[in-house]
């Protein structure tokens, strides 16, 4: 396992850039916590008025470069997706992360997120990469529940 598999330049950049960073009031924020390292992240998914499309991800939190870059890259790549699209997008991402290096994210589908493919070889870091995604899925559930 090479360190550069994990820390591609795009990741180091997004760790600093942090697209979507900053929470605004309202919405249904989800707070996620990683007990091993104490990292945490709060994220709100914003939907279009008809509830069908993701218009924004807003998040704040502290954590390692993988967790920060993953949140930032998700924001960059998934903003504008329909909720349905995002769900399968997130499933695909999770499958790749859990694959222990056997599934790579295609650049066609995942764009810059493909840079996170290497994480799946570092089992201890998969949770870091998933933190923002778990928060997004949870925020979507909270949003949907509020509609019922």
């Amino acid at each position, binding site marked *: *396992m090479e360190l550069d598999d994990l820390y591609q330049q795009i990741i180091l950049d997004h760790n600093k850039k942090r697209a979507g960073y900053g929470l605004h009031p309202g919405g249904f924020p989800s707070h996620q*916590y990683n*007990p*091993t390292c104490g990292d945490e992240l709060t994220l709100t998914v914003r939907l279009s008025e008809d509830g069908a499309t993701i218009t924004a991800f807003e998040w704040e939190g502290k954590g390692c470069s993988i967790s920060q870059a993953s949140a930032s890259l998700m924001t960059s790549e998934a903003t504008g997706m329909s909720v349905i699209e995002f769900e399968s997008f997130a499933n695909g991402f999770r499958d790749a992360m859990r694959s222990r290096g056997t599934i790579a994210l295609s650049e066609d589908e995942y764009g810059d997120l493909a840079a996170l493919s290497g994480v799946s070889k*570092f*089992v*201890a*870091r998969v949770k870091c990469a998933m933190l923002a995604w778990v928060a997004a899925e949870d925020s979507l559930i909270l949003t949907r529940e509020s509609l019922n």
Partner: protein
Amino acid sequence: MSQFTPEKSAAIRAEFPQLSETVSGHPLVYLDTAATSLRPRLAVDLESEFALRHTAAVNRGAHSLAAEATEAYDDARASIAAFVGARPNQLVFTSNATESINLIALAFQLASAVGSPARFSLATGDEIVVSEAEHHANLIPWQEVARQTGAVIRVAPITDGGELTAEAVKSVMSDRTRIVAFSAVSNVLGITNPVRAISDLGRGAGAIVVVDACQSAAHGHLDVESYGADFVVFSAHKMYGPTGIGALWGTTKILAEMPVVLTGGAMITRVDYDSSDYLPAPAKFEPGTPRLTQAIGWAESLRYVESIGVDAIAAHEEALGADLLAGVADIPNVRILGTADAVHRVGLVSFAVDGVHPHDVGQYLDSRGIAARVGHHCAQPLHKRLGVDSSTRFSLGMYSTSDDVALALAALADVRTFFGEG
């Protein structure tokens, strides 16, 4: 009769180096597997190898060694769970079956002290049902619960032949029954109890049902779900695994309801000076540095058991056990504890020799290389119930042979003569 071919038996025995030791100048005849089983070499070797080359802190830190150790530990839990038909999250590691039962008992004590959660809170007059045949491990913790909470122990009678029936359990149940705790197989009688029927009775009445599976695990197919209980406990060292590790299995629901008992690191999410939040089971019940190499060694022992075949082992031990039982029954002035006619038995028989104290019986057997267990086998009340203070026990394992049985029977037949009783 052995169900294994001589070649098969020889191959199995070659995996257990202790069988080539001698005792009192005779090749060891190990008939004490019910106390603790011998260890297969490949499992001990794997455990050493792990200790010597892969030691690292589990569930902590990002370094590769720690990640690998964590994976190995999780895999071990998954494979032990699979062996007993459980999901990994339902399997809590403990030090031994005794500690497993204590965790449940302590959960009752802690909850009762504060009156919550309700399911684990007992009040004066609530009832705890055990059987007359329990090992101390499945009796004394309940006495402590009773002492603290004012609950009452109700003892389900066995027949003079040592059998526990669902009716007997029912006879001591009432609308105050909150706990029903009993063993799948008594370590003195070797008789298989009607576990499912008793569990159904207990759970049907809203009680929490605890099954002590120490003597049924690894001697036949154990599917914890099929017991229909809330909790099932067992120990690795009776399943060809290491000392220092055992398990508490619980249904997902009961483990979620059960309050924490032992607390500390590795079972928390957030900790402040005043209070803390806990992870779900099994982590919730496993604070501190885990029994890493023991879990690895246990899992490997069970892999070995599976490679021979659980059903094949059960058939082998049952057939050999029948010979053993018949042979002991044939020796004059030897009284078997518990009926020899029970439909289902494991390969285990306890007996009293007229006029010769079990210590002397054991010593004589030892002089002929036979390792048998003597004493009350941690079941004093059961012995009293059966009219003796102590007994001698032969118990079989996967490595036992017809020769072992023949040698044990021959020696036993000479005991009374040696002590001038014959």
